[in-house]
């Protein structure tokens, strides 16, 4: 089943032709509309005419998350605000989020790609799609919502959380398709079991799960416990949101919708592009985006690209599930977290050189974050109530910055291991 058979099964030659055309148009547009890129081009002596095809991609400069921060909030937009119909944002590392803007055409394309992704996972116009991704500034909920509507399925915008209501709707609305983070899918499965509801009593058939790393074992568990076909979906707000790539029935990697994004895998150290089949950092160039088209955006996600034709008939290249990061970002319950965010909070609270450690555990199916903070003379008090109010302050600040609740534990000085003078900030005890 395809949503857009012509494009999804297009020949590689035709796809390359489209990419060449769109890339050249995009480069000219960006050069004229985005001073940041124009300056970058001028610095390396590159002219828009130098880019004639996908072959020339490696001549283009990279874009990083830091560039987005430096140009907060609208500096990288290629469209006028009057053309922007929606803004999304992801949590930033310095208190400021990363902002992305969409034109009406961007929303159309995004909806199209989410529709393709839902159909590739088995969704149809008859599907009742329960969208248990967060709605709001996070792209997960609204992205898939528009995809479900574009497809003509019935979208249930329940958003994340409130497990009892999720289960009630799942039963009463005859939900056939579930969209959420894989850990929440497992959590829902366990809640069903606790309430004595067998998945056979439900109408669930399939689901798409993403926004955090997961494994083949988790897939098997979700499929078994919910009695569904579980599909991986990939996306990031900088490039678009969910639906940049998604799995078909073959479940052998996620098809990247290459008529909108050109993927590359590079060596994160040398920054040299690597051939298909090599493991490295995923990089995207947007070729249709109007609001904020990024060139060679370094996702920091580590994966491998495969160009062998897929049995499903789709010709778009496939990416493996994300195997790690080339920076220190961690994902907890679908929330992106950088250790530096925690450091900023501690600095704010008055620590000159905070020593802290993040411990991530998985209890049952849910991830938990514990932040251990070494007590200093500044922070210490002989009164327990002062120490408790300190941990509460840290907790509240963390929860407002990270949008995630963390346990805060005070520990003795020098109990956090330091290696080469630099503390090992993250201990991830989750088993995928």
């Amino acid at each position, binding site marked *: 089943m395809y949503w857009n058979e012509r494009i999804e099964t297009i020949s590689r030659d035709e796809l390359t032709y489209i990419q060449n055309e769109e890339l050249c148009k995009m480069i000219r547009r960006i050069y004229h509309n985005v001073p940041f890129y124009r300056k970058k081009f001028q610095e390396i002596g590159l002219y828009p005419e130098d880019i004639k095809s996908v072959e020339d991609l490696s001549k283009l400069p990279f874009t990083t998350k830091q560039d987005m921060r430096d140009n907060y909030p609208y500096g990288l937009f290629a469209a006028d605000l009057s053309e922007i119909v929606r803004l999304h944002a992801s949590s930033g590392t310095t208190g400021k989020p990363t902002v992305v803007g969409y034109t009406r055409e961007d929303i159309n394309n995004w909806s199209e790609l989410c529709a393709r992704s839902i159909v590739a996972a088995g969704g149809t116009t008859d599907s009742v799609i329960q969208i248990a991704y967060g709605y709001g500034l996070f792209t997960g909920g609204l992205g898939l919502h528009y995809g479900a509507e574009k497809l003509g399925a019935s979208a249930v915008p329940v958003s994340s959380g409130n497990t009892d209501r999720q289960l009630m709707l799942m039963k009463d609305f005859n939900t056939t398709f579930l969209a959420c983070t894989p850990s929440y899918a497992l959590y829902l499965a366990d809640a069903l079991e606790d309430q004595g509801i067998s998945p056979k009593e439900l109408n669930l058939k399939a689901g798409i799960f993403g926004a955090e790393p997961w494994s083949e074992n988790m897939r098997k568990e979700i499929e078994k416990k919910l009695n569904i076909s579980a599909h991986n979906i990939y996306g990031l707000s900088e490039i678009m949101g969910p639906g940049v790539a998604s799995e078909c029935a073959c479940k052998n990697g996620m098809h990247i919708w290459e008529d909108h994004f050109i993927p590359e895998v590079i060596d994160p150290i040398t920054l040299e592009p690597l051939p298909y089949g090599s493991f490295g950092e995923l990089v995207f160039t947007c070729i249709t985006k109007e609001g904020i088209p990024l060139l060679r955006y370094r996702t920091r996600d580590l994966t491998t690209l495969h160009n062998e034709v897929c049995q499903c008939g789709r010709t778009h290249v496939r990416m493996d599930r994300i195997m790690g990061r080339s920076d220190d970002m961690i994902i907890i319950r679908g929330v992106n977290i950088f250790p530096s965010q925690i450091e900023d909070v501690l600095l704010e609270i008055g620590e000159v050189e905070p020593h802290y450690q993040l411990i991530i555990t998985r209890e049952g199916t849910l991830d938990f974050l514990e932040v251990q903070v070494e007590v200093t003379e500044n922070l210490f008090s*002989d009164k327990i109530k002062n*120490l408790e109010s300190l941990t509460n302050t840290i907790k509240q600040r963390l929860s407002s910055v990270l949008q995630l609740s963390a346990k805060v534990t005070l520990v003795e000085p020098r109990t956090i291991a330091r290696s080469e003078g630099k503390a090992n900030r993250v201990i991830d005890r989750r088993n995928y």
Partner: protein
Amino acid sequence: MIIQISVFLENKPGRLEKVLQILYDNDINLRSISVAETSDYGVTRLILDKPAIAVEKLKAENFIVKETSVLGLEIEDRKGAMLAAIKELAVNEISIEYTYSCLPINDNKVIIIVRVDNMERAIDVLKDSENCRLLNCEDMII
């Protein structure tokens, strides 16, 4: 007033032992100890004969240590003696943060340690009290 040393200790075996070992190795005498505990850590409060040396030695071993002024009240060892002393604080609206007892130095007397919200005022109220004697640091050196 006397000096109390508080030490931050994680809840794990051997931490208090380490503190006591340091005191012993440096010939420091313990007059009183009280532990306020939470699920993850405790604050150990100590009354010592040589608080300044204790602070230096504990800090050298990377302990987080704080010196706090507290009241040392010597009262008669009889029913109602503590009540009478505490009442004086209460009528003067001085709030007590925490209190614990300490080894005596004179026969038929007991010592209680009191941490209050307003030290100056508490000293003013109790300095000529008939219900207790305010101790100072030298009293702890025996």
